[in-house]
């Protein structure tokens, strides 16, 4: 039995929230203390990599629409690349701005995929509203890793990146398969 879309979104929200907390903790204690235990350095790349596997599974089951299948495949691929780049950075095989730029590209492409695959306007339903909101949030948030690539030591970039995942979690938790937004529900539902 395949779970409902909202169920998968809430699970994704939990992963995003945990990742946000981990990244916030890294911002608070600083990267030197955070990476004192090796496994913690691998946490965020491994979560990104693992999420990509989960997204590929969802892509396999999202066959009800070609657009959804493509969108989930794009997110899976973006998470895979970002996770791989971060893993390579932790292993010391990739240095400089490239790992952060890979994450920035992943967020940007993911945000665009959210915006492109939502066919309805903002206030059509809660799902449509959240697709637009998440899309623009990710597009804007791609500035944080981009800033990290240019100025790695500026706290604003790492804090903004961490909070992005918390915001994403809140938005994903708010998702329902069928629910109104600001009292409106589709063109037939009325205000």
């Amino acid at each position, binding site marked *: 039995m395949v779970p*409902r879309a909202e*169920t998968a979104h809430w699970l994704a929200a939990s992963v995003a929230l945990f990742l946000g*907390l981990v990244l916030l903790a890294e911002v608070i*204690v600083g990267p030197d203390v955070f990476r004192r235990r090796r496994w913690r350095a691998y946490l965020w790349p491994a979560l990104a990599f693992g999420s990509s596997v989960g997204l590929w599974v969802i892509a396999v089951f999202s066959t009800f629409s070609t657009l959804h299948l493509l969108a989930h495949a794009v997110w899976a691929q973006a998470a895979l690349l970002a996770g791989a780049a971060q893993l390579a950075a932790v292993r010391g095989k990739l240095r400089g701005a490239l790992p952060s730029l890979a994450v920035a590209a992943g967020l940007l492409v993911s945000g665009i995929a959210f915006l492109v695959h939502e066919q309805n306007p903002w206030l059509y339903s809660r799902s449509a509203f959240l697709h637009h909101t998440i899309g623009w949030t990710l597009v804007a948030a791609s500035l944080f890793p981009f800033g990290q690539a240019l100025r790695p030591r500026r706290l604003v970039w790492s804090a903004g990146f961490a909070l992005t995942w918390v915001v994403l979690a809140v938005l994903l938790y708010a998702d329902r398969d069928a629910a109104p937004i600001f009292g409106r529900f589709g063109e037939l539902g009325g205000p």
Partner: protein
Amino acid sequence: MPDPGRARRRRLRSGGPAGETVRGHWVSSEIATTISERAARRRSPATRRQLRGLAVQLLGPLTMLAGVVWAAVQPYRVAFLYPEGKGAYDYLVQPPLLVVLVGLVFALAIAPGLVEDLEGGEHGSPR
């Protein structure tokens, strides 16, 4: 008319003592320590470490609190409280309880080690 603040500003620019002569007496406007000195002392490395440790320790409980508040505000999102017509996935994935679970995992698996490493100081050995 001479500007009384001018001499004081000149002294401040030159790094001299901040003050002025009032009715023949030298009046200093300097306090015992400057604000920046006090702020620096207040945020000594040990204090900063303690504050950071506290912040990390609070992340998990605050997340759990958010989940509990959410469950109280929207109890119908907890399948245990509204079991009618609910399936297996509804029991496995209940958003407010997931939030509590995430906070719990962070508080038990991540925060203690971070606080321990933080208290170990800046020059602790990697593990």
